[in-house]
C-alpha cells in the first residue's frame, strides 16, 4: 500500500512547498521589481538641464536634500495620466521633485508638452540618448526614485504614481520636518 501512496505523499510535500512559495511572494510587492540600486548611492550623472541646455546638472548639485526623480517623456501616455499626481506632490512642498526627461525624439517636444500641461518640476534633467538611464536601471516611463539627502537611493516605483502609493510608500520614507524647496 505504501508503494501506491508514494506518489500522493510526494505530491503533498510538493503542495506544501508551493504553499510556502505563495506565502513568501505575498510579503513582496509583486508589482515592484526590486532595484539593485536601493540602499546604494545614486549613479553619477552629468546631464544638461532641459530648459537651459547650457547648464549641466550633477549629483553634487542635488545633494543636501531628498528629492524624487520622476522619469517622463512627452511620448508617454501614462505620464500624462500621472501628471496631476506629480503636480500635487510638488505643490505640497514636502520634497523636491526633479524631472528626468527621457528619450525625446525632437528637441521641441518636451518644452511643448510642459507648456501644455504645466511644469511641476524644480528642475528637469534631459537624457536624449538614454545612456544615463541605463545606469539608473530605467526601462520605461513613468518611473520614480526617491534619493535621500546623502544621495542614497531609497525607493523605486515602476509605473504611474498614485495618491495611495505616495501616501503609503513614499511619505513614510521622508523625514517629518518640511524641507525648504
Amino acid at each position, binding site marked *: 500500500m505504501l508503494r*501506491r501512496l508514494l*506518489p500522493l505523499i510526494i505530491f503533498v510535500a510538493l*503542495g506544501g512547498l*508551493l504553499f510556502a*512559495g505563495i506565502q513568501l511572494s505575498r510579503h513582496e510587492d*509583486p*508589482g515592484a521589481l526590486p532595484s539593485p540600486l536601493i540602499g546604494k548611492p545614486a549613479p553619477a550623472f552629468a546631464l544638461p538641464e532641459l530648459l537651459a541646455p547650457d547648464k549641466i546638472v550633477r549629483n553634487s548639485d542635488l545633494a543636501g536634500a531628498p528629492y524624487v526623480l520622476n522619469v517622463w517623456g512627452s511620448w508617454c501616455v501614462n505620464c500624462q495620466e500621472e501628471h496631476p499626481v506629480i503636480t500635487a506632490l510638488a505643490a505640497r512642498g514636502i520634497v523636491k521633485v526633479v524631472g528626468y526627461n527621457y528619450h525625446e525624439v525632437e528637441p521641441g517636444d518636451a518644452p511643448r508638452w510642459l507648456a501644455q500641461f504645466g511644469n511641476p518640476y524644480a528642475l528637469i534633467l534631459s537624457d536624449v540618448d538614454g545612456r544615463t538611464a541605463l545606469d539608473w536601471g530605467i526601462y520605461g516611463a513613468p518611473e520614480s526614485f526617491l534619493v535621500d539627502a546623502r544621495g542614497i537611493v531609497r525607493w523605486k516605483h515602476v509605473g504611474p504614481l498614485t495618491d495611495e502609493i505616495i501616501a503609503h510608500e513614499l511619505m513614510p520614507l521622508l523625514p517629518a520636518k518640511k524641507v525648504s524647496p
Partner: protein
Amino acid sequence: MLPELGQLALILALLLAALQALLPLFGAQRGIDAWMRVARPAAFGQLLFVALAFGILMHAFVVHDFSVAYVARNYNSLLPIGYCIAAVWGAHEGSLLLWILILALWTGAVARFSKSLPLPVIARVLGVMGLVSVGFLLFTLLTSNPFARLLPMPPEGADLNPLLQDPGLIMHPPILYSGYVGTTVAFAFAIAALFDGKVDARWVRWSRPWTNVAWALLTIGIALGSWWAYYELGWGGWWFWDPVENASFMPWLACTALLHSQAVTEKRGSFRGWTLLLAIAAFSLSLLGTFLVRSGVITSVHSFAADPARGLFILVFLGIVIGGSLLLYALRAPRDDDGAPFAFASRETLILANNLLLTTACAMVLIGTLFPLFADAMKLGRYSVGPPYFGSMFFLLMAPLVLLLPFGPLTRWQKEQASLPIKLLLPWLIVALIGGGVAFVAMPNAPWKYAAGIAIGLWLAFGTLRFVRRRLAMTGQRFTAEMLGMTFAHVGVAVFFFGILLTEATSVEKDVAVVPGQQVEAGDYTFRFDGVQRATGPNYLSDRGSVSVSRGDRRIAVLHPEKRRYEAGGQIMTETAIDPALNRDLYVALGEPIDARGGWALRVYVKPWVRCIWLGALLMALGGFTTSLDRRFRRNAEVG
C-alpha cells in the same frame, strides 16, 4: 453591452461544464443511461459558449473598446491590426480564456470522434474533462475576469508587451496550450479507467492517438518558443532553462515516457499501473506549469502578472485534482501487474530503461526549478539554478538514452537473443565512430562535442533506418503508420542532437564595438557595418543598422538589425537580423550606441546547423501525428 454578454456566456459555459461533469460521472457509477447521454451535448454546448466569450473578447480588441480593462492594459490603437489577435492572449486573463477554449475544443473533439466507445467510458472521460473545465472557468470568473470594465474609460490603452509583438507569438501560445491541454485527454481516460475499476489494455488503446497528437503539439509549441527566444531576445541562445521553459519541458518529458509505456501496456499488458501514473503525471505537470507561470511563486522573464490570490486558487485546484487522482490511484490501481512476463533481453526492458531515464530527467528538471523556492522557504538564502546543473544532468541522462535508442525497435517483445540486434547494429556503430573519428581529425581544434555530434547523429539515424530496412525485407509484414511515426520521431532525435552538439561546438560569437565601414571577421565570414539609420514603424521608432556579409569575394546577405523604441511604453527592444540556411545562421544584433560618431556595439554570431534543433523537433512532432493515424487505433475502437 457585449462584454457583459461575454461574461454571461462564461457563466453559462460553467454551468454546462458542471452538468457535463456531474451527471455523466454519477450516471456511469449507477448505470443510468439517460444521465450518461448528457455528456456529449453538454460538451458541445460548453464549447459553443466558451467560443462565444472568446469571440466577444476578440471583438473588444478589434473595436478598441478601452472600457474593458484587459483591452486597455494590452492594446494600443497604434498596434498593427495583425497583432490584434495575438494581443487577446498577450496577458494573463486572455491566455487563460484561450486555455479554456482549447480545453473545450479537445472536449468537443473527444465527444465527436469517439462515437464507437462504450457509453460509460465516454461519459466518464467527458465527465473528468468537464471537472477540469469547471476548475478553470471558476478560476477565470473569480480571480481573472477578462471582461472587467474600467471606469472612467481611458482615452488610449497601454501597448501590448513589445516582446510579444512578433509573428512567432501569434502561433506559440495556441499550439503550446493545445499540447498542454491535450494531456487532459490521456488523464481523463486514465481516471475513467480507475473509476471503472477495469484497468486493462482497452483504455490505453483508446487514449493512445490522443496522447500522440497532444505530444506532437507540445513538441511544436516548445520548439516555436525556443525559436522565438532565439531571434527575439537577441542573445543567440535557444534554450535558457528558464522556469517557464522548464514548466513546458516537464510535461513533455513525462508525455514522452507515457507514449512509450502506453505502447507496452497496449500490446503486452505490462506496466499498467505505471502508465496510469504517467498519464496523471503528464497532466499534473501541465497544471503545475500553469501554476508556476501565473502565481508569481517563481519569477521569470515570461511570468504573467504575479498575484498570490490566483496562486492560492490554482494551488487548491491542483490539490483537489492531482491529490484526488493520486488517492484514486492508491485505492484503485491494479494490485497485480499481470502482463505477459518478459526476459531481461526484450523490448520491455529497453522501454523500461527509456522510462526511467526520461522520468529521472523530468524529476531533475523539477528539482532544479523548485530548488530556489525550497532554499528560500527554508531560509537557506537565495539560489538560482542554471545551465551548469541542467546541462551536466542532461548529459548524464541522455548519453545512455542515445546509446540504447536504436536497439528498441530491433528488439522483440518478451524475449530476444541479445546477439541479434547487436549483430544488426554493430556495423552502424562502427560507421558512426569512424565518422566521429574523421571529424575529430579534420577539425582537431573543435571541442569534443563536434565529433560527438557527428557520431551521435550517424548512430541514431542509421540505427533507426536499419530497423526500416529489416522491416521492409520481411515479406508479408505491413509497415504500419505507427512504425513510420516512430521512424520519423527517432530520426528527429538524431537531427536534434546533431544540431545541438554542432551548434555548441562550432558557433562563433563576437561582441565588438564598430564604427561605420568597419569589418568584423567571424568564422569564414566577413561582416561589414554600414551605419545606422532612423526608421519609423507603425508604433515604434527604430535605429536600423545595415550589415553586409560576405564570404571571400562573394556577397551573401545584407542584414538589418534594429533597436526599437515602442512609443506607448517607451520600452527598448532588440530586433535581430538573421540570414538563415540549413547548415548555418548568420545572426546580427545591435547593442548600444557608443559615441556620437555613429559607433555601435554589435553582436555577431555564426551558428552552424542551429536550424537542425527545430527541424529535429518538427520531425518528432510529425512522428506523433503519423502514429496517431494508425489504422489499428480506429479499428479497435470500433470493436471495443
